[in-house]
């Protein structure tokens, strides 16, 4: 048994033993859960992949004379201004209404983090207190009062594998899927992935301090579409389950870990590096973090089917997915990952180094995540039917 306070004392003293969720697997294999628990204080996790449900709150400061922005664009990408006068939210998947290569909120966010100038245009009807009706100017991250990512759904705990049974290539948020099951794509960093290492979220809750986009962030709420109702194999759910809403100051972030993506004929998304430290409070936590790719299963779905009620074609392990091909109906199907393992490792490694240097300490969660949560569908209903 170990407490957060003890671990943080060890971190401050430079004595904490910290391993990544990949490194710890062999330690548990060699020494067993009991000894590994005695020796290791913290295990770091990491992932770097497309996280569409991301975006940033920005405060531009007041112009002279002041404006109450009712419509705003950043590099021609619409930002949401239905909040206070010079606050805006730029969503990662929002697109500029331009010809040519797709350009969206994710690109604006990447540019701001890169320190580049971004064009701001805004319109207003004008009010007695905010007379100005339009403005066009250039901004940078440093020129903003606040700029923080607020991502309603990140770090999916497991996810589906996508393939395509049709005879045409389909372009999806899971990437380019060749006809007749010629490939399959998957995401998550498997055994290194944050929420797969603490499957019931004993140590991850509201207030948990994390690595976000190269800087420090916090878990702020349960993520949208958080669900606990999937089948569990080897202690971890099969398919997309728990998620987290996270927030963090863009001013500490780096384009190494925040990267605009374009999924052809789907749209723009944002790749984010996210890592969570898992305190080894007891043997139960050590067992959780020692899970390996052989034991984590993902369901395979046919993404050429246009229904929310798809039935999985098969279940495959991350060890198979990472081997480069999976077996589907006796056919060898090549696999591709949307999550970058080298970058996921950099995240876990960076987090480990921050703690080794005493710069990052653990937080005890302020409130836990829901222990049970289903997922509701959207049906077309009249007001009478819905209440």
């Amino acid at each position, binding site marked *: 048994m170990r407490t957060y306070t003890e671990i943080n004392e060890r971190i401050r003293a430079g004595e904490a033993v910290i391993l990544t969720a990949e490194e710890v697997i062999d330690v548990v294999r060699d020494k067993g859960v009991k000894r590994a628990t005695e020796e290791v204080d913290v295990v770091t996790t990491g992932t770097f992949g497309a996280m569409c449900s991301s975006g940033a709150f920005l405060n531009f400061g007041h112009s002279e004379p002041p404006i109450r922005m009712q419509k705003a664009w950043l590099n021609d990408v619409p930002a949401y201004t239905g909040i206070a006068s010079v606050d805006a939210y730029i969503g990662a998947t929002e697109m500029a209404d331009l010809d040519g290569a797709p350009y969206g909120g994710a690109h604006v966010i990447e540019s701001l983090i890169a320190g580049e100038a971004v064009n701001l245009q805004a319109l207003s009807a004008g009010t007695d207190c905010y007379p100005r009706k339009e403005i066009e100017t250039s901004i940078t991250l440093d020129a903003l009062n606040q700029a923080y990512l607020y991502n309603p759904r990140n770090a999916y705990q497991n996810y589906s594998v996508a393939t395509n049974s049709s005879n045409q290539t389909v372009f999806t948020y899971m990437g*380019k899927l*060749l006809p007749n099951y010629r490939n399959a794509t998957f995401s998550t960093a498997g055994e290194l992935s944050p929420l797969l290492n603490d499957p019931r979220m004993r140590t991850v809750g509201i207030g948990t301090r994390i690595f976000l986009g190269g800087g420090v962030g916090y878990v702020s709420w349960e993520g949208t579409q958080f669900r606990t109702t999937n089948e569990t194999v080897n202690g971890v759910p099969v398919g997309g389950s728990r998620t987290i809403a996270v927030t963090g100051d863009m001013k500490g972030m780096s384009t190494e870990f925040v990267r605009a993506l374009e*999924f052809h004929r789907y749209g723009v998304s944002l*790749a984010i590096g996210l890592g969570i430290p898992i305190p080894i409070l007891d043997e139960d936590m050590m067992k959780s973090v020692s899970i390996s790719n052989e034991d984590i299963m993902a369901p395979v779905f046919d993404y050429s089917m246009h229904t929310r009620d798809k039935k999985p074609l098969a279940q495959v392990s991350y060890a198979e997915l990472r081997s480069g091909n999976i077996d589907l109906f006796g056919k060898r199907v090549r696999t*591709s990952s949307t999550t*970058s393992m*080298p*970058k996921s490792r950099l995240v876990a490694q960076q987090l480990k180094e921050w703690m080794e240097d005493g710069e990052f300490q653990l937080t005890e969660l302020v409130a836990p995540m829901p222990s049970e949560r289903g997922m509701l569908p959207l049906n077309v209903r009249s007001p009478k039917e819905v209440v």
Partner: protein
Amino acid sequence: MARRKFLLRFRPNIVSEPVTYLLVKDFGLIPNVLRASINDRGGKMVIEVDGKPSEIAAGMSFLETKGVEVQELMECVERDEGRCTHCGMCVSICPVEAFSVDKGTWKVSFDKERCIACGMCINACPPKAMQLM
């Protein structure tokens, strides 16, 4: 005289026809087979063709009437190393396995020598690292 590169895909029924021979004999073209993988289930062939532009066009239309899928290849595809995140999305797309994944570091390497510039990975790479030069 012009030189152009094509990827030819065959279905099984026409594998046995001597494609390159017909291009020489009937169209006066000089084909050079750069890569071929053909078996009785069909196959792929990358050829470079020298000849008059009109004869090249005629030769390729002729192949299409024979049921060969003809795809012109581009000059050169390059990877912007600064943008590549080593995700691996390109790996299962490339028809000639020009990408390979190191199982130790999980880095994705791109073998430009193998690449036939078919362009299939360009719209499959989310950070837009694969570019036509």
